[in-house]
């Protein structure tokens, strides 16, 4: 193999080779779909052809052993065809409806339950956490496992008012793009980075380090004779950008790192425009392995939503309809100065009208 000329810039394989025949035949000719039961839907083409999809949960972090198991199931039930979704579930693409139930049974046996379609809680988009990233303020996979264990019935059933999307990111870089999720769990640092003055001059460029700080908290300084930087602690809001730029600015801190909860974001244009998630709970402790505070908080919010939102209404639509003060009252989440924006466009979030439910 090493003898063959080195290939580069070939890009991904063309997708066509991975499409089931029914898809190739009816590409662009689908007419409608129906959800048959939790985790199962059928798409009907203009030709009358049908494509059955069975969607199973995935922890995203998959062993090659499991991937092979999926491949085996695909061979048995879906002609060898399968795909993953944009939320990391696995989907088997079946032509024969008779295979649906056996496939579900086989998946279940392997520990991969079926669901997540329609008005349900689908998989939780997440990131690396302590498994792989240097920036993480928490573990991603662990929190997600704990939360999804608790919410599992809502994955397996279509018992939500509308779609409810949960995402997790382990630091403010937000690789999980939690900024637009119905519920977002975000790992946070709460202490200014500790500077390793001995390493800094070797590892980092001081000017770009200084300019990396959005609040100007990082200033050039000579410390114990070395050209280094100092941090004006009151100006630091723990974004970690200086650390991204310079490894000698470690920001992780066992006592103070933890999680925050955000709610009401969405990306679809359905009914209302896409929205950012907004701060619900500024801080919850890192409490592995099952993060009960986080699990409980998410559950409280899901329950309030499930009990009060109207059909089709997403989390943020519901909250905007009832007003944020009502959200805080219904969930019993305390409101604090941390909830009040004080970043660049803060003033845009101040209530500039009398439109209040007076209580």
């Amino acid at each position, binding site marked *: 193999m090493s003898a063959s000329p080195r290939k580069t810039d070939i890009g991904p394989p063309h997708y066509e080779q991975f499409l089931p025949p029914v898809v190739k035949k009816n590409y662009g000719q689908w007419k409608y779909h129906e959800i048959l039961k939790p985790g199962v839907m059928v798409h009907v083409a203009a030709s009358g052809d049908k494509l059955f999809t069975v969607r199973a949960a995935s922890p995203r972090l998959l062993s090659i052993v499991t991937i092979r198991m999926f491949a085996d199931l695909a061979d048995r039930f879906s002609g060898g065809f399968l795909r993953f979704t944009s939320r990391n579930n696995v989907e088997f693409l079946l032509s024969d409806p008779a295979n649906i139930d056996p496939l579900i049974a086989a998946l279940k046996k392997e520990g991969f339950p079926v669901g997540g379609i329609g008005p349900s809680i689908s998989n939780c988009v997440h990131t690396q956490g302590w*498994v792989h990233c240097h920036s993480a303020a928490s573990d991603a996979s662990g929190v997600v496992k704990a939360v999804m*264990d608790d919410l599992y019935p809502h994955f397996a059933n279509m018992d939500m008012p509308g779609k409810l999307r949960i995402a997790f990111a382990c630091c403010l870089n937000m690789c999980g793009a939690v900024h637009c999720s119905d519920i977002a769990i975000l790992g946070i640092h709460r202490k200014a980075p500790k500077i390793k003055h001995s390493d800094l001059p070797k590892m980092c460029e001081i000017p770009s380090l200084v300019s990396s700080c959005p609040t100007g908290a990082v200033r050039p300084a000579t410390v114990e004779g070395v050209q280094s930087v100092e941090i004006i602690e009151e100006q630091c809001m723990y974004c970690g950008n200086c650390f991204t730029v310079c490894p000698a600015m470690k920001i992780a801190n066992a006592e103070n790192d933890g999680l925050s909860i955000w709610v009401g974001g969405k990306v679809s244009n359905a009914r209302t425009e896409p929205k950012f998630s907004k701060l619900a709970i500024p801080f919850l402790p890192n409490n592995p*392995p099952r993060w009960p505070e986080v699990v409980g908080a998410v559950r409280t919010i899901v329950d309030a939503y499930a009990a009060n939102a109207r059909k089709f209404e997403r989390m943020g639509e519901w909250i905007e309809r009832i007003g944020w003060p009502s959200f805080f009252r219904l969930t019993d989440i305390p409101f604090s100065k941390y909830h009040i924006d004080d970043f660049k466009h803060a003033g845009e979030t101040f209530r500039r009208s009398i439109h209040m439910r007076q209580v």
Partner: protein
Amino acid sequence: MSEERKKRETPLLDELESGPWPSFVKEIKKSDTPMADDLLGVLERSYEEHIGHWKHGGLVGVMGYGGGVIGRYSDVPQDFPEVAEFHTMRINQPAAWFYTSDALRKITDIWERHGSGLTNMHGSTGDIVLLGCKTEALEPTFAELTSLGFDLGGSGSDMRTPSCCIGQARCEWACYDTMGACYDFTQTYQDELHRPAFPYKYKLKFAGCPNDCVASVARSDMSFIGVWRDDIKVDAEQVKAYAASGKLDIQQDVCDRCPTRCMRWDGASLAIDNANCVKCMHCINAMPKALAPGDDRGAAILIGAKAPIVGGALLGSVLVPFIKMEPPYEEIKELLSRIWDLWAEYGKNRERVGEFIQRLGLGNFLEQIGLEPVPEMITAPRANPYVFYQDTVEEEA
């Protein structure tokens, strides 16, 4: 792949093996390689200490590429030598994450030979993430992957791996061929993908309709969101069937939820004032058998979405309200290259294109890339009087 090794004690992580949701701990244990073992060990330590144990990456990669590999080193290599180096490789996924069992098996075989046996299917950007290998494994893995027809994805300040929703492969609402477009753009910009030469990352995502199942409006510097211009197609019989089904209250669940309230339901027939429809998809979503997007289909192009680092998160904003999406997408590619040229020249280091536009001013940006300003690009004109007037009368000398 099992072999006789002393397994680490991981009582905290073991608690995460139970419960109905599939367990990542089980996955790590299944992999059963020395690397996976040490990963479990170091993770257990993080669970004990509430802190991660990874250091900054540093420059690792494959020859001739500047992206696609994330270097990672342990800060406790003495205790967990197998993950002292634990780099991930980002492999450009096939469009919309379609596979055959055969292709998947071949990938797993390569990763069994060279890596931890752990993956993410998939990373947040869309890549196949091969999670954890040593520096020495990078080149051989790359060689085997390219032989199989796979290539690396993006990382660093380059075009990132584009991704797309399933689109016309399965979805009745796809207003253009997302997978075709995604593949085409990925191939056209192989150089930009592998060799970081931008001020910062640049992500492309393709969604077939305004439902945006690939979250493009939140997560891509340039998003192509399918949309139509003509009237919603109505199958009057099917509307009645929905009404009769009792599962849907057409007035309350559909008409009253329309953002512009441009629908009228009299109990028997549905009238849509299409001139006031803002293509939100809601009514179509609610009655997929009865309603469908029109026939004059294309996409809107939005620009500038990003996560919060460091000027605050942005959603994409409308750059082109409507364009036909037809290969070879020349007009779009010309536009894209004008944007990249401008941003590459004037963008600051680590300044995403969305932030760049805000710094420059959208009006100036449009002028520079040669696009006419249209009111669809904004939700409202400026409310402040601070206009930089240009067409003024100069004084006589």
